[in-house]
């Protein structure tokens, strides 16, 4: 979602004539393909929900089951993104500031959740956290059940969101000038002070961007969650699953209403992330 950052550069006025041919052709192709694949289908979805009428729409999206599923989707995504923000900051720090055997492999493996199909992640996590699984068997005596509970949803969302914070924070840390930290130390700052007053302010925009990216990704996630969640209505049923359930019961209008709520929130998140990235970019530029 680096769109804004890129586009800001692109929009800089460049008063020169077009020498390179093919403008009409490439713009036309881009617009037609974009419209056919993305814009028209999405617009049709909004139109379909309009068929429902405003009262019925409100009735659908405020029904207890829908509200519970939206709460779970957004709540679990928030918790998972928080976990990923803390853990991602640690991993990014270690990858940038420390050299250890196998560092390059570890660096590459961070991207595993981007490459591993979500269904595979879903069944693997379920196998691990089921009461007889490798991790579940350890947690069971403690009275902690992960699989088939909302906690399982969080575990799956942590997995799929793991790379985002690492990848947004890592480049900022790489550019962080260590002399500033040293200067703070020679001036008598405590380690905690240096972290809070020197490191964190620089990393903060990137950390927030990574958090938002992980959150946005988690909200719409389906494949990795449905295996581990147990999918009990009102308890561990996420909103995307409820859309699928409504579709399977041929309740198209209701499925569309839930989808529209999620789409609106997702687009708002996307714009917020674009703004965040612009801010992070400017901050990083100022520090360098």
């Amino acid at each position, binding site marked *: *979602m*680096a*769109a804004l950052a890129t*586009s800001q550069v692109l*929009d800089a*006025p460049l008063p020169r004539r077009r020498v*390179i041919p*093919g403008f009409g052709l*490439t713009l036309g192709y*881009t617009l037609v393909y*974009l419209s056919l*694949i*993305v814009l028209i*289908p*999405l617009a*049709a*979805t909004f139109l379909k929900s309009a068929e429902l009428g405003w009262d019925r729409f409100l009735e659908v999206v405020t029904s207890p089951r829908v509200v519970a599923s939206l709460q779970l989707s957004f709540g679990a995504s928030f918790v998972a993104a928080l976990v990923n923000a803390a853990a991602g900051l*640690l*991993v990014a*720090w*270690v990858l940038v500031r*420390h*050299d250890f055997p196998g560092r390059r492999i570890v660096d*590459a*493996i961070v*991207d*595993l959740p*981007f*490459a*591993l*199909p979500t*269904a595979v*992640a879903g*069944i693997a996590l379920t196998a*691990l956290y089921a009461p007889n699984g490798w991790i579940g068997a350890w947690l069971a005596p403690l009275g902690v059940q992960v699989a088939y509970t909302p906690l399982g949803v969080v575990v799956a969302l942590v997995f799929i969101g*793991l790379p*985002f914070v690492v990848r947004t924070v890592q480049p900022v840390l790489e550019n962080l000038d*260590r002399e500033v*930290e*040293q200067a703070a*130390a*020679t001036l008598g700052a*405590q380690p*905690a002070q240096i972290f*809070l007053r020197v*490191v964190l302010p620089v990393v903060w925009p990137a950390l927030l961007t990574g958090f938002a*990216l992980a959150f946005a990704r988690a909200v*719409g*996630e389906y*494949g990795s969650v449905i295996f581990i969640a147990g999918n009990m209505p009102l308890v561990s049923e996420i909103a*995307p*699953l409820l*859309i*699928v359930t409504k*579709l399977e019961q041929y309740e*198209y209008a209701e499925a569309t209403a839930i*989808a529209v709520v999620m*789409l609106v929130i997702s*687009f708002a998140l*996307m714009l917020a992330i674009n703004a965040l990235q612009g801010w992070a970019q400017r901050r990083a530029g100022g520090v360098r």
Partner: protein
Amino acid sequence: MSAVASDAVAPLEPAAPGEKDAPPQAARGGPGRRRRSAAPVMLVTLALAWLGVALVLPLVAVFAQAFAKGWDAYAAALTDPMALHAIRLTLTVAAIAVPLNLVFGVVAAWCVTKYDFPGKSALITLIDLPFAVSPVISGLVYVLLFGAQGWLGPWLLDRDVQIIFAVPGIVLATVFVTFPFVARELIPLMQAQGRDEEETALSLGASGWQTFRRVTLPNIRLGLLYGVLLCNARAMGEFGAVAVVSGHIRGLTNTMPLHVEILYNEYNATAAFAVASLLAMLALVTLVARSWLEARAPELRGERAAQS
């Protein structure tokens, strides 16, 4: 957090009285040169333990479960006719969807980086749009368009054309979810490369197509490969969008990820993990190829934070 903080200062300890003549600390990168402090070791251990539990363990679990009943059961699960059909369908869908988005990616990136026009930033945001949409909704939009109760459903039904619960729907849903991959990889790359080389070629008399083939294409080769790699991994592994449009008809509309789901829900875990292990290997190959490409072209690394 305080652990991180104490590490921030670890290299500074020598600044204590009596060690003021120590060489500049910024130059010291390696852990071997750090002083006694236990903090760095602790941090590295903590980070590695986290990644081990959160990432590596699930990956190991896939292969452990796949081979839980031995090699024969594994081979049997993969040579099952339904599994073979799922593998073939997945390859077919990727073979259609990836080239479509490859062509689009190149054209869109060319359009956005070689010309200036109003609304360009909006266009770039729109290209990114599919990444903001839940996979389930990516499938739903096509059901609403082409399904039996959709806008075009009756018209298609009259002409005996089936898109939903058939292969065309799966291809469409896959194209949607992998839509931005190539474009968003190429746009920053081509932006950084500018237009001078193309303009020079043109002024020397090359045609537009020659300029693209001989000047632009060689420049973006690695970025293109990078985008295709990510696009392909997602195309073969997509689950949510495809699940909505496929109808799960075995031997007809079952891709590999959907086959994994069916087997798993039938309590045939070994077979499910066997098919899943193929997808996991695809993921590992993708990661290795990606690292190799990044080693050759470090500028590709910049965009990876935003991939999803």
